[in-house]
């Protein structure tokens, strides 16, 4: 826990919709309670409805900051990862979500902020500043990001190449990146389905990687993205998952 600071909330005096979209948004007691309730319900439903299994939980670092990275083919992905983390980390865990999908509409933005604790990443107008703010928050506030470096949900369930943006958060830092593989989420709730189906989901957690020696430039970011992508692909091979195409294939829509 940080030392005491007589410092107003960073989002003080922002109107609700602006506040929900604000990257440096700070949660209060009510949001914390609602989020705990939300995550408890999600955990329960994932256990009962999807019989979720988490393998390699011991690989998760004991304390933030860290980034969890995984393949992305379903809205259940972030929920599956979030439910594998301790409930006490609820206010410190931020799934990074597509701004144009989760934050354009005020109601969706309120849900994304209050329930998911998501932070927006604007795909078309992201800009370096947005990513720089996210990197600063990760380092200063000791939080956890859930990130899907493919940039979008795969429509076929097969993983696309990881984008360099991931590297911008962790290059030249000691922040661990935890590669994960999610199996079954696409079958349980594919992008075209309106409601989830009761299919089994498995989450495999790999050992964390660190990138202190990766340079904080395009070359270093690329190396980070490739290394983590390799780790996820390796997990799929080890666990015999059929979600990955040959490395060159482009199956995901952008």
């Amino acid at each position, binding site marked *: *826990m*940080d*030392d*005491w*600071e*007589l*410092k*107003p*909330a960073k989002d*003080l*005096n*922002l*109107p609700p919709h602006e506040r929900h979209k604000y990257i440096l948004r*700070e949660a*209060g*007691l*009510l949001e*914390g309670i609602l989020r705990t309730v939300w995550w408890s319900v999600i955990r329960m439903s994932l256990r009962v409805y999807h019989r979720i299994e988490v393998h390699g939980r011991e690989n998760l670092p004991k304390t933030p900051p860290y980034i969890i990275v995984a393949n992305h083919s379903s809205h259940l992905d972030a929920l599956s990862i979030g439910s594998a983390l301790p409930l006490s980390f609820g206010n410190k865990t931020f799934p990074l979500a597509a701004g144009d999908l989760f934050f354009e509409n005020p109601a969706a933005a309120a849900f994304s902020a209050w329930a998911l604790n998501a932070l927006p990443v604007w795909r078309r107008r992201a800009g370096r500043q947005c990513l720089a703010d996210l990197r600063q928050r990760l380092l200063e506030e000791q939080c956890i990001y859930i990130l899907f470096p493919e940039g979008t949900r795969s429509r076929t369930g097969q993983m696309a190449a990881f984008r360099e943006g991931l590297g911008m958060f962790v290059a030249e830092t000691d922040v661990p990146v935890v590669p994960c593989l999610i199996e079954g989420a696409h079958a349980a709730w594919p992008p075209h389905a309106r409601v989830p189906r009761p299919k089994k989901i498995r989450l495999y957690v790999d050992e964390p990687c660190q990138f202190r020696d990766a340079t904080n430039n395009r070359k270093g970011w690329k190396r980070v993205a490739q290394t983590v992508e390799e780790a996820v692909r390796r997990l799929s091979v080890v666990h015999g998952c059929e979600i990955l195409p040959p490395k060159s294939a482009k199956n995901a829509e952008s």
Partner: protein
Amino acid sequence: MIPEVAVERLFGFRHAFDAPVTLWLTVAILTVMTASGAALFVLNRRNAEQFGEAWLRWKSWVWIAGCILIPILLGAAWTIAAVTLLSLGCYREFTRATGLFREKTISVIVVLGIFVLAFASLDHWERLFFATGPLTVGLITIATIPSDRPKGYIQRVALGVLGFSLFGFSLGYMSNLANDVNYRPILLLMIFAVSLNDVFAYCFGKALGRRKLLPATSPGKTMAGFLGALFSTSLVVAVLGHFVFAGSAVDHIGHLIFLGVLISALGQLGDLVISSIKRDVGVKDIGVVIPGHGGLLDRFDSLVLVPPAVFHYLSLVLGPLGGDQPVRIFSSMAQWTIGN
């Protein structure tokens, strides 16, 4: 069974205008709102640039007046609910402005304290109400000890105690006041006088104000505004109070004037308390809940110190407020109670 007289006080909206002053004040507020609204509507149509802000503020005033008047008229239970929401809202804004919101443990205790105060008021269990103040303060002081973080201990505990005292306990006295059968005119008189006090201070300050009152704390306030409001509000309270407390021990010119001075002085001091907090943390407005006004605390700042003073002064002169009403309405029904 809940006594009939308690049900009538808690939910008996048919008694809303039993006291003539309640009707007068309600009509006065509605008349002022309607007249000013009509004038601003026309002015805003003619010159939106100049009167747009005033029109926005008026629209917010309609909501504020409704949120105050309707619960008070509907019954004590609704009044207590509204006061509890006001307490929670004000405390939330205070914590976000000072950074105390990052201390979740303290906020949990303050919020629980506010709910216990609300229950004690609803139940008409005054011993519980008065016990909740010091006991919550005690809990706040020990709450973060187990986290083994001595650094910042004084600041977080002091802010927690200040937040609970001002926005939980002090505002909670309005809930406790609702246990008196005559609570409607008393609360309306108090809130009406506090609002009018702001208007008087502004008008006297604009007309006669030269010497600043406390320029570093609140540059807009003047000595003339302070004294003018003190005089005018005391007069209004004395006149209206004569009808609210007709035939009781308070219905004496000395008591009524003193009550007016108390409301006016503490109203303006409450304003200065919130100004000091805002200046200390370096924010202009403390929230955005009320368009054109800012946060709840920017609007209700003058009310913060008044309720305990009015409650205790009236009970010192009149005897226990609500003394003729049933006590422990709900808790006495439970088997485990150990007596009143």
